[in-house]
Structure formats: C-alpha cells, structure tokens
C-alpha cells in the first residue's frame, strides 16, 4: 500500500490519498493520470490492470485501487 501511495503522491502531491474517496467522481484523477498510474503499478506490482477494470469504483480511492491490485495478483 505504501508504494501505491507514493506513486499517487508523485502524481498529485496536493491530495491526501489516505483519506480521499472520490478521486474519479471529483475529477482529481483524469484519464491521463490513470494511464500513468497503470504503467507505474505494472512496474511496481507486476500487475496488468485491464481496460475493463478502469471504472470509478476501482479508482475512487487508494484503498479501492489497492484491493484491485490484490485481486488481480490473486487471479494470476
């Protein structure tokens, strides 16, 4: 989770990703951020997030995103 938070903070240092739960709904993350994020997650966790998983529920908070990573790691 710490590595993920670090990636997120590098993208938007002004946001408190520990507590924010509406990253997509409030347009904190745009589609460009999401693509950058997915590439970095791929590097860090060796997990490929498929396009159909790019939905608000999976990207609205750091916690939700981390759950997605764990789920995809399990599926592997």
């Amino acid at each position, binding site marked *: 989770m710490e590595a993920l938070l670090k990636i997120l903070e590098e993208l938007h240092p002004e946001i408190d990703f520990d507590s924010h739960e509406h990253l997509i709904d409030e347009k904190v993350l*745009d*589609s*460009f951020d*999401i*693509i*950058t994020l*997915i*590439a*970095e997650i*791929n*590097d860090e966790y060796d997990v*490929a*997030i*498929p*396009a*159909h998983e*790019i939905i608000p529920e999976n990207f609205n908070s750091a916690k939700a995103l981390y759950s997605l990573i764990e789920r995809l790691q399990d599926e*592997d």
Partner: protein
Amino acid sequence: MLFTSYSFIFFLCILISLYYLIPKRLQWKFLLLGSFVFYFFSGWSNLLYILVTIISTYFTGLKIDDLNRKQNAYLKENKGQITKEERKLYKEKIKAKQWKLLLICLIFNLGILAVVKYTNFAIANINSVLSMFRMTELSFVNLILPMGISFYTFKTMGYIIDVYRGKYEPERNIGKLALFVSFFPQLIQGPISRYDDLSKSLYQEHSFDSQTFSYGFQRVLWGYFKKLVVADRIVAAVLTITRNPDIYDGVYVFVGMVFYAIQLYADFTGGIDITIGVAQMLGIEVKENFIRPYFSKSIVEYWRRWHITMGTWFRDYIFYPLSVCKPMLNLSKASRNRFGDKIGKRVPVYLATMMVWFTTGIWHGSSWNFIVWGLLNGVVILISQELEPLYAKFHQKVKIGDTFGFRLFRVIRTFLLMSSLRILDCYRDVGISFKMFFTMFTKPDIRVLFDGSLLKLGLDASDYVVLIIGVIVLLTFSLIQRKGSVREMLSYNSAVLRYSIYIILFFSVLIFGAYGIGFDSNQFIYNQF
C-alpha cells in the same frame, strides 16, 4: 424519414397512440416494428445492412457466452482435481477462443462501415498518387451510406466488447437486441447508448404517465425550436460564406465561424433533444449527450460536455485498451529506461491520445479535413496538459482568483478555440481552411460588420432579429439550467405561466421555423456521420 418532416410527425403520432393502447407486454415488439418501418423509409437496402450487423453480433454474443458456460462447467466438474496452473491455462485457452470470435465480429462489422464509408476516400487518395506518376486513375464506386451506420455500428461494438469482458450476459432474444440496435429515435444521430443503460427501460412495460409524457413533449418542442428557428435559419449565411471563400474572407470568416458554432450547437443538441424527448414520451430513458458545452472553460472540459456518449465510447473502447495493452506498457517501460521518467511515461498517453483523435476525426467524415481536425484537437489537448504546471505557477504568482471576469474570459477563449478548429469542418478542405483562418488576421476589415454587408449573406433584417432572439433564448435557458432542470422549475410555477411558455414555444416553431419559400428543411449535420 427526417425528424423535421411531416411524415415523421405523422409516424410518431400513430406510433405513440398505438404504443399506449396495445397490451403492455407487446410494447417493445411494437417499438421494434416501428423502428424497422422508420428505417425502411430511408431505403430498404439500409435495412439489410443493419440486419446483418444485428445477426452477426447476436450470434457472436451467444457463442462467447457458450464458452463461458463451458468453462464454468469444466471448472466446477474438475474442482480440486486440477492444479491452479492447469486452471489458469484452461481459462486462457477459453479467453483466446472468445478473443478470436470478438475479433471476427468487430472486423466484420467495422469492415462494412469501412467499405461503405471510406472506399471512395481511399480511391481518391490512391488516385492522387497515381496521377503523380501519370497512371490511369481508378473509378469511384457508387456505394450508399446507410443512415446512422456509424452510430449503430459503434453501439453494437460496445455491446459485444462488454459481453466479451463479462460486463453483462448477452441478450438471448434476438428481437430485443435488434430493438437496442435499431431504436428509431437514436438511429439518425445517436446518442451512442450502452446496452446496460438503455435496456433498463427499453424492454419494460410502460403505462401512460402524463408528467413524463409532457416532459418528453416539451423536450421535443425545444429541440424543434433549436433546429428550425435557429439552425435552419442561420445555415444560409454559413453556406454563403463557406462556399464562396474567394469572395468572403477576413472578418467574414470570423462571422462564418461563429455562425457555424451556433448552427452546429442548435442542430446537434436540437436533434438530441428530439431524440431524448421522443424516448421520454415512450417512457424510455436515454442518456444525456450534452451539458452546456459552450460554457466550458477548457478544451478538455469541452470534450467532457460535448457529444458525451461518443467521447466516453472512444475513452472506454479505444483510449484505455490501447493505453494499457501489453505492447504499450512495454513501450512505456522501454522509453522510460531510454529517455527517463518524465518523457517515458508520456509515451503511451501521447500515442493513445493521438490515435483516438485520429479515429474521432475519421469517424466524423471520410476526408482529410476531419482527420486534421481530429489530430489538431489531440495536439491542443496535449499542449494544454503540458502547460498545466505553467498555469499553476502563473496563478501562484499572479493572484487572479476565480472571478466572474476570468471565468468568462476562459469560456470565450475555449469557444473561440473550438470554433477555430471547426473551420476545417466548414470549408471541408485543409488548404482552404488554413488560408481562410489566416485571412482573419491579415484582412481585419471590421466595417463589414456595420455597413450592411451581413444583410447580403442570405439573411434579411427580420432573419437577424429572429436569430438574435433565438440565441438569447438559448443562452437564457442554458444559464437557468445550471441550477437544475428548467422543466421541473416550470412545473412548480402557475399553470398560466407554464402553458404560456409552451404555447409561445409552439407558435414560435410554427411561425419562425425556417421553412416555406426560400428555405429548405435541412438534414441534421450529424446524419452524415
């Protein structure tokens, strides 16, 4: 059958009356019949094209689902008997089969679209190369572009990709799938609905609800007002300017550009109002396609508010899959190693963005002006993305604040930027578009705005009065809409006020609509896409 034709009004009256009279369980079947009748009137051969798309998509969906069932049965049967690795391998094998089916379906349907829409464009390009070498040129083929083919093809592609992704199960009733694809209010110019959105209310049984019906009717009326009073009136001046670039340059180009922005807005959003309104009169919910786009403060925001269903379609089915596919991730990694983090991580975003905008451009029309228009949109978006840190620094130093004046400046800037890009759409020729754009700066003779020249563009003084009032009405309603639905606000007001507005709107469409001698009710601009 045009939305603005008497035959459409007649068709609609009969369809809606019978829709609420027949047994409710037959309503969706009746709508399917109505949609096919509507489509049949645009040419029986068009019906063949849409049927081929429906049938191929239907069977592909079922086949993909069969493989899912086969996989589930196998995994259940062998639970505990196969290793995790074997399980994974089996799943991959099934997925590969499903991928093959999906690809065949997509290539087949996209192929139909490509052949009817782009064959002559390809021939024209080949001919220009052949003529350079003085070789015999190819002859053009006479292909009819079926009405709404880009819209229904994208709808079915979205559906089959979602089925492949396991977002929902395929529709097992071919009639229901056919209705989703051919639902008549959406056939002409979208919105490009998603199956899981539209199906919620499309197949339901609907009782007549006077409130919903009257909201739908008001929306339709509002659409006709935009289309007939504003768009079809201003088009005369737009055509005079853009079809005579040798005569009308300089300030005229600016006038044409602004007029076209008004025409396109009134035409396209008016058409969508009619679509959503007609659907609402039938009790069916269709997603919004616009959120006051000309109030956008940046180009990125503009594209979030203009033709929303197309933008999200391209995002979900092209931009994301392209950006996160394995080769792109590998490319990202390689470029980060080679050029460093800063440049490397931009590679997939840049590539995917430009490919999406190329596709958006060519989707709009099979000519270079649309491709250049699309690519320029991509370039402007990327530049504004890159300049964001600079803006932030500037705002830290210069405290402008979020004042009304600054917001207005940003809105006007975005409007002018988008209108400038649309010059490519006006002139339909890349060279002429750029030439005319630059004449705005080289021939800034603003006298033409005041010396009566504007009255020689196919519009007389009374037309301008109607247009000015029309635009003021559009603007006022948009400003009110920021606080919520105008129709809902009106419903809280007295019946006298409410009905006065409806009656004024109705009669202004009848009296000030641009038809009769000298006017020709025009096709909707987005019909041709």
